């Protein structure tokens, strides 16, 4: 399968949508359509480690050792 067939598929889908067969599209048109990045983190905040060995994580590890 190639990207070309992918294009074809999309074209047909768009066509059908235009013809009113499609389900109501709840999703926005693309990431760009999302509002301005108001809550953006700065460079340091972004990189900060999030991982913590919580109870939840410990249970995951333990269940994998069984």
């Amino acid at each position, binding site marked *: 399968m190639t990207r070309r067939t992918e294009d074809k598929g999309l074209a047909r889908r768009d066509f059908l949508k235009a013809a009113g067969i499609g389900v109501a599209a709840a999703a926005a048109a*693309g990431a760009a359509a999302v509002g301005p*990045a108001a809550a953006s983190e700065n460079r340091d905040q972004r*990189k*900060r480690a999030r*991982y913590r*060995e919580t109870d939840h994580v410990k249970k995951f590890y333990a269940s994998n050792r069984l």
Partner: protein
Amino acid sequence: MARMKFLCDSERCVECNACVTACKNEHEVPWGINRRRVVTLNDGQKGERSISMACMHCEDAPCMAVCPVDCFYKTDDGVVLHSKDLCIGCGYCFYACPFGAPQYPQVGNFGSRGKMDKCTFCAGGPEADNTKEEYAKYGSNRLAEGKLPLCAEMCSTKALLAGDGDVIADIYKERVARRGYGSGAWGWATAYKTGSSA
């Protein structure tokens, strides 16, 4: 500091695709975008094995190296993330990636690519943690919630491991020692430069 990694134990993977639908479920990934998928080798023949594949969050991530707008960044956990605000959908990262991880929605009828999307190790993106904005662009941020990627957490046979690379390598080693066989940690040599067995 803990370094996040994925490891798929192919002796356990039964190609059930729970990892795939768990990912869809957790992040509401739309039809046609696949952050994770299961690849089967020797399908239907002796030696058939499956492995679950996604962005491996590489040590020297090729996607980062080729990105013309420098939209990628790597967290102190070793997770490779990117900004969809900066991404121009050029597709270079897709060609650079050894795992085929980057995905693109199509926008318009002429095949132009939308913003790249890929596995975030359930760690969101550059918006503030677990805000609507972050969720809308990147999905949930389980790491910030003190959890691990849902694909691994829900894996039916506990084949897919995720978390602290040292811990999951240990778990895998224990398994190999106990059962006396293992096919090695798929993709680790490429992603983490650690040799093909954990």
